[in-house]
């Protein structure tokens, strides 16, 4: 025994203060990033959170079947068009009734960035006190891998397939995190699964910051099935996404944008794209467009973080 203690337990485990409320056997694909994220959240935030979910890959697990359930959290399973409004209704009633609560809206990029963006944006404008977590797997995976607003340039999906005329998505991805940070909410952050300590800290910051209003976490969560990746590579994909600046890790606390992981010498985006089949067909020219996209966003974020360092978000009028 003594001889075995060559290493030290990773600090991430210190953040997992609560039991996993989910059933051991749930039907997410092997290597699913969403499953890791979903189990992680209540272990950090506590088992008395109320989670709201919409039709998506998470729904078959978040939502029960008849009177039975896959987890012991209180949840509200609802529509993609109104997830943030549902959470609004909950927190406002709890406020009126004096019930302590942590409501976590847990949605995919389809709900957050596309069909449900209107009410997400409205909830942010009203600075509603809950945590909205978007797990971004860059497409509509549960309906069979279709293009979404965050699907990157060039990626093939079943609605942007590789054909003789059109070769994958010919539109650029949207940057949901930056969009949300512009709402002057108390806390916005990006996170991913390779950096779980960073994720845990951000979850805890969000839980604290939600006392002052709306918190948004944009979590990059690969879908090995939809992306044509080896399930074992899920964490490696996240790591490479960070190292190439494809998905930079940052936070905006009270309006101050700050990189939480600085990448000194970013790798070319190809070290990320080569890990999955959805980019297989891309030529060097195509990859350059994606690279330009990444560099533009990095540049933008760099500029914002310099600018915002001088800015302090005014205290919310609701306080």
């Amino acid at each position, binding site marked *: 025994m003594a001889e075995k203690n060559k290493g030290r337990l990773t600090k991430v485990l210190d953040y997992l203060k609560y039991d996993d409320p989910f059933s051991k056997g749930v039907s997410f694909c092997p290597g699913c990033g969403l499953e890791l994220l979903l189990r992680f959240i209540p272990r950090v935030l506590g*088992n*008395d*959170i*109320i989670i*709201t979910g919409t039709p998506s890959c998470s729904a*078959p697990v*978040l*939502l*029960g*079947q*008849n*009177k039975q*359930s896959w987890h*012991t*959290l*209180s*949840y*509200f*399973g*609802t*529509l993609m*068009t*109104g*997830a*943030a*409004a*549902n*959470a*609004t*209704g*909950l927190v*406002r*009633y*709890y*406020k*009126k*009734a004096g*019930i*302590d*609560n*942590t409501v976590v809206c847990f949605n995919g990029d389809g709900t957050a960035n596309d069909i449900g963006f*209107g*009410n997400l*944006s*409205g*909830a942010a*404008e*009203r600075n509603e006190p809950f945590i909205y977590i978007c797990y971004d797997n860059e497409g509509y995976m549960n309906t069979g891998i279709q293009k979404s607003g965050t699907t990157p340039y060039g990626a093939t999906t079943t609605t942007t397939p590789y054909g003789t005329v059109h070769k994958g998505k010919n539109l650029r991805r949207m940057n949901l995190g930056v969009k949300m940070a512009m709402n002057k909410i108390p806390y916005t952050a990006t996170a991913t699964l390779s950096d779980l300590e960073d994720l845990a800290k951000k979850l805890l910051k969000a839980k604290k910051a939600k006392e002052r209003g709306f918190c948004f976490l944009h979590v990059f969560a690969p879908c090995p099935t939809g992306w044509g990746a080896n399930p074992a590579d899920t964490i490696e994909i996240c790591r490479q996404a960070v190292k190439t600046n494809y998905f930079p890790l940052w936070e905006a606390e009270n309006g101050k944008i700050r990189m939480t992981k600085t990448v000194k010498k970013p790798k070319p985006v190809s070290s990320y794209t080569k890990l999955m089949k959805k980019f297989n067909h891309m030529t060097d020219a195509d990859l350059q467009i994606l690279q330009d996209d990444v560099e533009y966003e990095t540049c933008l974020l760099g500029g914002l973080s310099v600018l915002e360092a001088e800015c302090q978000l005014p205290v919310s009028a609701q306080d």
Partner: protein
Amino acid sequence: MNTTAISSNIQVITGNAAAAIAAKLARPDVVAAYPITPQTEVIEQISSFHASGEMDCELITVEGENSAMNAVMAASLAGGRVFTASSSWGLVFMYDAVLATAGARAPVVMVNVNRETPGIIAVSSGQQDMISTRDAGWIFLIAENCQEIMDLVLQSYRLAEDYDIQLPVMVHYDGFFLSYLSEGVEIPAQETVDQFLSVLESQPKRTMLRPGEKLGVGTHGILGGYMELRHKHVTAMERSKAKFDAIDQEFADIFSRSYGGQLEEYLTEDADMVLVGSGSMCGTIKSVIDEQREKGVRIGLVKIRMYRPFPHQALVKALKGKKAIGVVDRSLAFGFDGGPIYTELKAFETKLGGAKLVSFIDGIANTDITKTNVKQMIQMTADLADGKDVPEVTWVSYPKANKDKGEK
């Protein structure tokens, strides 16, 4: 309607204001709404009550109707009393959440200020928005005047939140004709309303979404589970008919105003002919009936106050044995010749003891259902009673439609 003597509680207010004041009196926990003509005044009034501290609710100024319904549905499932209001395209924009609210059995109360909906942009009255959403699984109630708007909203909370019902209720009233109509409305005292609603507190608590209670809402109903929920839903809707009648009775005891529950019957007992209508048109119909009665015409009115669930038992009871029945619809049932209420009532024709039915379509897109039009309807219904040949469907204010039909 029996009107009490003038008292200091009577204020001259619009239908929209009546809805807003009723909502205030019901003391909702959460209100979320988005403006749309002709409903806007409702939420302006509520915002003003909220701003002045008269209304202690969480007011959510949402970015669209869809969010309004989603927010009140969630607040309701969390245990709150809620209110929202919309109209026309707003109701359509929240339609997915309207369905979800019914499916989740969330006792939401809302008012819908009737306005035209499909295809053509028309800022004008018509019940088409109600018809377009009639199968959402909500209880639909329809008001005739400003006082009834006030009273129906109050009655709605008793119906929606009743432990045996647990269904959302939508109170409909005609846009423009009622929303902007100013007339005297008796505003009940807060204590009286509190007393009327206090019955709900003595009932068992409905299931509520609370932190840490391990209860979730929005489960997949699988295998027979979905069927079970649907069956419970339609059973509760059926129960709501008698419940609504009983609530109206109780309301009469407390507020000295009674409407008759599912239907209001106006001079039907000895009538040979009856018009069936709903909403503001009924006031005009009553005034024409008063005139016709003086001439000895035995005509009555059946006013539909509860449209969903469809009060077919009560209708059969009220209409059985009459000679002829004219059904007036302020909306269309696309794909059918006659109006929506007409086509639905037609399904019970064999139970009406030989009464003949005829359909009148009028009042589409602010077209006024005038006294002249009502007289024409009564004349045609009388002709039908006399065995004369009367077209099955008449577009009263649009004779060309009737002519085209005749030519074919």
